[in-house]
């Protein structure tokens, strides 16, 4: 099929075997690329009950359908695995150039299994894929890894993704980095790479990516860019980037501050304007994207692409750190060491509050800059207290107490949105396939940004969240970045233009539902049920003290009722187990349905 490459690369690190196989074409029409294809391969290949850090786990790299073409924001690379942070299926995507490069190297997916005897990297070109020694990179940060590997390969243009010491040391919040500042952030997949002794992948491609009819394709994409992409509505992507979100959240009273003790930040607006007005030097784009959202900044002698909104607040106001330079130093350290800044900020704020409440003293209080700046390295190398922090908030709360303010869902730390002022977001966190994630459904758009829906009710939210999950799943499977809010009709049109298929808007929503159910099937088989689809106690019982959401909590009874409604609308039972009828209706492939039936019958 056009715009796909037709081949999958499989690497078995235990035996050193590298094989190519044909992409399962029948899966492309159902699951597309990126998230969908990654989910399908993972569900095919692994037992969902395995230890995520065992050799049996896989890590799957899948570019999107549009990667390598001239469609903007289509170049991301999804990375799918069983998450060591949550035990759920997880996928996250990384920007930059690496997604397109996988296509140019000739692959729709790169699937890695097993465990190498010593630290290795993969070098992949259309001619060969080799497993090479990487002991010389041990302990190196992702930035040095990028520079050293390029020198070693004598190739400045080779594209690299790598893990830092955090991934090598199996830190549960370790992330995968490309081009220094592009991260697959969440769920600790870098620890899966670390567990496989895989330090990096270097890719160089030169194959053609083709589309159905290139001259009409170019004309149409050019028009779509003018009408739907480079519009005033999207200008935030390159003026301020993600930082605009923080102002909306602050105005809505849901900007997490002091470990979610309040939703109003005294510092965010100042940090935002200091970054854009004083420190910004320019934009950096991902490959092939006209939006160009990356803020390249300099603060004194430190340069950085970022901080993104999530980072600026989670390692900033949420830890009561208010100085931009300090935040930038912390951000850069996390990027280099390979740490997810959302989870890191959440964990640091948690231990700060633990001390404040006298639950346990890790020797750091809110706003303690000196000790704060030492933490990324301690966590990444598991030094001193870092060894426990590396296990995440859930682990700390189970060991020391304070579960009610341990801000995680299923072991994934909550990102920078407080659901007490956006009840739909609460349901989105609870039902997300990988724990507390803001990328699965984002009802905050309606509840807080556009204000078209009452944020303090659960009425209509089950459907709102479901629609959002299907929309994002379709979009992240075909492969369009979060930052282009195109509708499903346009998404279908782009897909048809690239592949020559005949997809409709309805097919897209159905495709999103199909893939969402693959995730649920995996998670049910891994043991997840209704009891896991919940939220930290703080959101249920501790009212926000100030701002527009003052006095609000998520009423637990209503939450549970809405969760039932959510399951019903999905055709799942009261425990959140998908029904065979619905799976058939949404055309999940037969093999999956049979596999799931066998699992249910065994129980």
């Amino acid at each position, binding site marked *: 099929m056009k715009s796909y490459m037709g081949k999958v690369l499989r690497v078995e690190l235990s035996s050193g075997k590298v094989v190519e196989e044909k992409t399962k074409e029948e899966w492309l029409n159902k699951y597309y690329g990126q998230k969908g294809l990654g989910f399908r391969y993972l569900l095919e290949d692994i037992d969902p009950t395995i230890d995520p850090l065992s050799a049996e786990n896989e890590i799957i790299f899948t570019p999107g359908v549009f990667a390598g073409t001239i469609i903007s924001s289509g170049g991301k690379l999804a990375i799918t695995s069983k998450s060591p942070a949550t035990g759920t299926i997880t996928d996250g995507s990384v920007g930059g150039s690496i997604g397109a490069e996988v296509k140019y190297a000739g692959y729709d997916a790169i699937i890695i299994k097993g465990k190498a005897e010593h630290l290795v990297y993969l070098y992949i070109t259309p001619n060969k894929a080799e497993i090479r020694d990487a002991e010389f990179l041990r302990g190196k940060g992702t930035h040095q890894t990028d520079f050293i590997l390029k020198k070693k390969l004598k190739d400045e243009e080779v594209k690299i993704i790598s893990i830092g010491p955090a991934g090598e040391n199996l830190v549960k919040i370790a992330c995968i980095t490309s081009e220094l500042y592009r991260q697959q952030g969440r769920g600790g997949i870098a620890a899966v790479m670390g567990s496989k002794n895989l330090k990096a992948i270097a890719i160089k491609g030169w194959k053609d990516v083709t589309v159905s009819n290139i001259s009409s394709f170019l004309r149409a994409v050019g028009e779509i*860019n003018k009408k739907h992409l480079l519009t005033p509505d999207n200008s935030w992507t390159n003026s301020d980037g993600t930082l605009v979100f923080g102002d909306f959240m602050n105005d809505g009273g849901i900007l997490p501050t002091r470990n979610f003790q309040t939703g109003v930040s005294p510092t965010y607006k100042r940090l935002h304007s200091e970054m854009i007005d004083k420190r910004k030097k320019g934009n950096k784009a991902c490959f092939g994207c006209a939006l160009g959202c990356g803020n390249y900044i300099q603060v004194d002698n430190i340069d950085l692409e970022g901080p993104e909104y999530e980072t600026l607040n989670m390692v900033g106001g949420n830890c009561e750190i208010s100085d931009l330079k300090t935040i930038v130093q912390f951000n850069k350290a996390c990027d280099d060491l390979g740490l997810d800044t959302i989870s890191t900020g959440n964990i640091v704020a948690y231990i700060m509050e633990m001390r404040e409440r006298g639950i346990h003293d890790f020797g750091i209080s809110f706003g303690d800059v000196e000790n704060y700046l030492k933490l990324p390295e301690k966590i990444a190398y598991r030094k001193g207290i870092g060894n426990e922090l590396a296990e995440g908030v859930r682990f700390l709360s189970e060991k020391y107490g304070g579960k009610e303010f341990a801000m995680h869902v299923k072991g994934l730390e909550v990102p920078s949105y407080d659901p007490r002022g956006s009840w739909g977001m609460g349901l989105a966190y609870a039902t997300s396939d990988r724990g507390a994630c803001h990328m699965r459904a984002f009802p905050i758009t309606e509840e807080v940004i556009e204000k078209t829906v009452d944020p303090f009710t659960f009425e209509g939210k089950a459907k709102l969240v479901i629609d959002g999950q299907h929309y994002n799943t379709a979009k992240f499977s075909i492969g369009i970045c979060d930052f282009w809010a195109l509708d499903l009709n346009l998404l279908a049109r782009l897909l048809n233009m690239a592949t020559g298929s005949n997809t409709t808007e309805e097919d897209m929503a159905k495709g999103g539902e199909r893939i969402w159910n693959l995730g649920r099937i995996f998670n049910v088989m891994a043991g997840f049920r209704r009891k896991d689809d919940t939220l930290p106690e703080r959101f249920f019982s501790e009212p926000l003290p100030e701002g527009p959401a003052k006095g609000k909590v998520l009423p637990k009874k209503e939450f549970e009722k809405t969760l039932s409604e959510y399951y019903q609308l999905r055709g799942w039972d009261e425990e959140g187990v998908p029904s065979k009828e619905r799976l058939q209706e949404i055309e999940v492939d037969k093999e999956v349905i049979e596999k799931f039936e066998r699992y249910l019958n065994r129980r």
Partner: protein
Amino acid sequence: MKLVLEPEKCTGCKLCELACSAKNESVFNPRKARLKIINRYIEAGREVKGKFCTLCKKCLEVCPTEAITFNGKWLTVDDELCSGCGECVDACPEGIIFLNDEDKAAICNLCEGTPYCVEWCPRKCLKLEVEE
């Protein structure tokens, strides 16, 4: 006339490279583009620069079959005369000439005065400079 880049405005998106390969080779492949944008982090920080035809005409000088001609505005390759020897590829100081799938020299001809790369530049930082 020639291409010029304002590197401080360039995001490094490389849509210009994709547009070039699409228009001239009918595929998406930056290695088949007749210009190159460098956009990367080096140890000293960020590096952005463009490599494109400066009309130095070294390719024309070394061509043994006189396949390359200059009309006062842009270069043209006569595919019938081009032997695919690759002398021009080696001679190009910008490193942006390559042999295409038919083994013919692929050299920027500024799309005969309306460069497609310029049309696709989202920041309008790649421009066609026309001398008075």
